[in-house]
């Protein structure tokens, strides 16, 4: 019997894996998958707000939004090719380097793979019609038809994403009853698709794509702003950068809630997997994540504060910014405090117990949830000040409305703090439930304050127009910081999602028996993530340059300088 077991193991491994020179099979597939995903997120995220800004342009009869939407879409045309190229590369790498795994997956998902490829064609043609038909279908009912194409583009893109998500979530959470002995072709397709983590990932990615698309578009605008040769051009790209950043930050604020849901579903699917993710060998990953998200909050607020410099009336809010900065930094430090770590016997003895005496206080979820919710509230307050800066409400209840807004902020902050402190005095299972109250308080505040603000703004007097373009250059570098950080964060979260499977291609169904079966440490992962980020941003820069070339060509043909918009 041992000989049989050995032979079986040998045969199982032989031919199951290919070799990639230099960096190895895992790194090759990792890079191809991650860069493909970054482009995919971009081409799925940008159409969402291209179609929204086009709608604003149609309804508000404001051509500025229509131009912005078209500019977004021009970037898409180039990015789409890059997405497909990296997707093709990924496919060839998986089939040649992981043929046994590919055999398993294709036996289950062959039908959805064909549908996926078909939809890719349809999506491509819809995009081409949408972009190249822009000036053709410009007015009246034709314009609405054109907008419908944009909507369809989103529908196809979302379905494509849902299909691809089903493959990777099957690897994380295969249906109950599927074991190593199950013949793959006997697994019902829908059971494999509608697995435990499919919908949470779908929602999380949908939001994350909008965040990512907004951040990259803002970076594009920042680059064009810095390279602008006229005030008019600078004003346009200042405005575009603001819109991109607004979309990125507004959607980013709801992303943690989708993340909570995903995390809960992972725990419900398999406690061991959840614990590996949050408290096992990946526990330090969340500290790195906290560093990145702290940078995002700081950069986003910094951009808004600088932006207030070009808004008449914003001076009255300036004195608050230093306190908001202080609060953000304190919350950042708390959020970045480690708590749950793997500790061996020697380390436990050295610490004098299961937990570090100091980190034990700040590194717990009560403190972290409180910190992140306060950071969200602070960022929302920055945005509110930015929005209110040049407005003087004229409604009779203006003062009461502003006080109500202040009360909502105070109530939300008090709720967050109360449950944050109370969490130290209750058991873990009760404490986990407190995060729901904290999140609900913050969301209620955001919704309530926004509604009041919209009503307050009705008929409000202007303290002066926003001086678009009169932005210090360092504000544009803040947008670059945001884009690079979002990209890196996406790579990190991809590692977290994929890494929690550890030495399984398909969790507890198909083991990874390759030389790369061990999930690497964060240092190695960071090297790969940084490589992916640099490849992606390098190619995006090339695409932006191409976009500029095309634009110059168009303007030349029209007989006007590119700078005049």
């Amino acid at each position, binding site marked *: *019997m041992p000989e049989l077991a050995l032979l079986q193991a040998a045969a199982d491994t032989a031919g199951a894996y290919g070799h990639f020179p230099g960096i190895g099979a895992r790194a090759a597939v990792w890079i191809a998958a991650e860069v493909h995903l970054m482009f995919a997120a971009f081409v799925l995220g940008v159409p969402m707000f291209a179609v929204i800004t086009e709608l604003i342009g149609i309804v508000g009869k404001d051509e500025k939004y229509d131009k912005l939407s078209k500019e977004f879409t021009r970037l898409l045309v180039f990015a789409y090719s890059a997405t497909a190229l990296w997707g093709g590369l990924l496919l060839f790498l998986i089939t040649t380097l992981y043929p046994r795994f590919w055999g398993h997956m294709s036996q289950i998902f062959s039908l959805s793979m064909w549908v996926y490829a078909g939809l890719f064609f349809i999506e491509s043609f819809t995009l081409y019609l949408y972009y190249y038909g822009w000036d053709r279908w410009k007015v009246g009912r034709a314009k609405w038809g054109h907008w419908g194409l944009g909507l369809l583009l989103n529908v196809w893109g979302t379905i494509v994403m849902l299909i691809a998500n089903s493959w990777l979530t099957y690897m994380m959470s295969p249906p109950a009853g599927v074991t190593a002995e199950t013949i793959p072709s006997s697994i019902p397709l829908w059971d494999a698709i509608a697995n435990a983590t499919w919908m949470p990932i779908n929602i999380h990615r949908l939001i994350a794509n909008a965040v990512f698309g907004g951040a990259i578009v803002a970076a594009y605008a920042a680059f064009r702003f*810095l390279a602008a040769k006229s005030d008019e051009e600078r004003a346009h790209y200042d405005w575009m950068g603001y819109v991109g950043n607004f979309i990125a930050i507004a959607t980013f604020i709801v992303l943690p809630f989708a993340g909570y849901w995903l995390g809960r579903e992972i725990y419900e699917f398999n406690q*061991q997997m959840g614990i590996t993710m949050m408290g096992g060998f990946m526990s330090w990953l969340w500290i790195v994540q906290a560093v990145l998200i702290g940078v995002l909050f700081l950069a986003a607020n910094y951009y808004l504060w600088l932006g207030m410099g070009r808004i008449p009336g914003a001076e009255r809010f300036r004195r608050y910014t230093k306190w908001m900065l202080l609060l953000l930094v304190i919350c950042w430090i708390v959020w970045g405090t480690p708590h749950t770590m793997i500790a061996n016997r020697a380390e436990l003895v050295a610490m004098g117990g299961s937990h570090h005496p100091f980190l034990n206080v700040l590194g717990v979820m009560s403190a972290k949830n409180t910190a992140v919710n306060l950071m969200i509230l602070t960022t929302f307050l920055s945005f509110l000040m930015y929005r209110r800066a040049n407005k003087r409400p004229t409604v009779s209840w203006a003062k009461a409305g502003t006080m109500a807004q202040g009360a909502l902020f105070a109530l939300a902050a008090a709720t967050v703090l109360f449950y944050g402190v109370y969490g130290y005095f209750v058991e873990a299972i009760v404490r986990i439930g407190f995060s729901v109250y904290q999140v609900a308080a913050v969301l209620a505040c955001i919704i309530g304050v926004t509604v009041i603000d919209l009503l307050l703004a009705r008929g409000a007097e202007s303290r002066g127009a926003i001086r678009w373009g009169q932005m210090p250059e360092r504000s544009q570098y803040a947008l670059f910081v945001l884009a*690079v950080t979002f990209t890196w964060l996406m790579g990190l979260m991809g590692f977290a999602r994929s890494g929690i499977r*550890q030495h399984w291609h398909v969790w507890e169904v198909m083991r990874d028996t390759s030389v790369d079966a*061990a*999930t690497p440490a964060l240092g190695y992962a960071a090297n790969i*993530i940084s490589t992916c980020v*640099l490849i992606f941003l390098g190619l995006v820069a090339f695409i932006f340059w191409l976009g500029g070339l095309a634009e110059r060509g168009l303007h030349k043909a029209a007989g006007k300088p590119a700078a005049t918009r």
Partner: protein
Amino acid sequence: MWKVNLKVLMLTLAIVGFYTMIAHSIPQLESEVPEDLDLGGEVTPDALVAAGERVYNGAGGCVACHGLGARAPNLLTDHAGEGAIGARCGAREAGKDCKAYLWEALTTPGAYVVAGFDNIMPDMRRSLPVDQVWAVIAYLQAQGGEVTVTAADLPAAPSAAASAATGPPRSTTTDPRRLLAENGCLGCHAIDGAGPPIGPSFDGMGARLSAERIRSGILDPNADTAAGFAQFAGVMPATFGDQLSAAQLEAVVRFLAGRR
């Protein structure tokens, strides 16, 4: 223009470098793969304890919960003043000695959940070979108690042990695909284009062999070796005549003969 390009490039490199540096400056923990430990028939209790310690701190992933004592009882130092696990395991459940209790705790953990904790532990046989589960038990016994796990507890081979330990009743199914899976046929024979090439592929077997030849090949596999598989001669067990009922054998034969 080039100045802007250069600034953007430098900023990007600085940010990426900063995050990479942060990731390198924290503890570098790698998720280990369950390794093949040398736990032959002559293994000593000390060797079992040493192997168990490696599994406990490594591939077993035990410390993720038990190392903290927050999600699961601390096993190595103390829990509720009862001492380390080796000292308290014999008194946990009435009628169960330490070894039996620990085996139950690692293989059917939901059977007895320590008060104050959730039923979150998986059956460790899903992620570890059975001999490594026994090694972990030996290591846990060594934490303040007497090691009673011996080489005799270890199964002869992982697959046999797994089935013996789980103790499943013999399958009564006549679904040929399930039978092929349950009897380990797919460990050597490919089907639907996938699987290891130790024995002839089941795909197209009906076109190559008659039903009679397939039946005799299952019942007396070493009488004749398929062309191209001489190096694996003698590998296929000659026990399927005992393992399968007549109906099951015929279901498999008909299924394979029909695969043209």
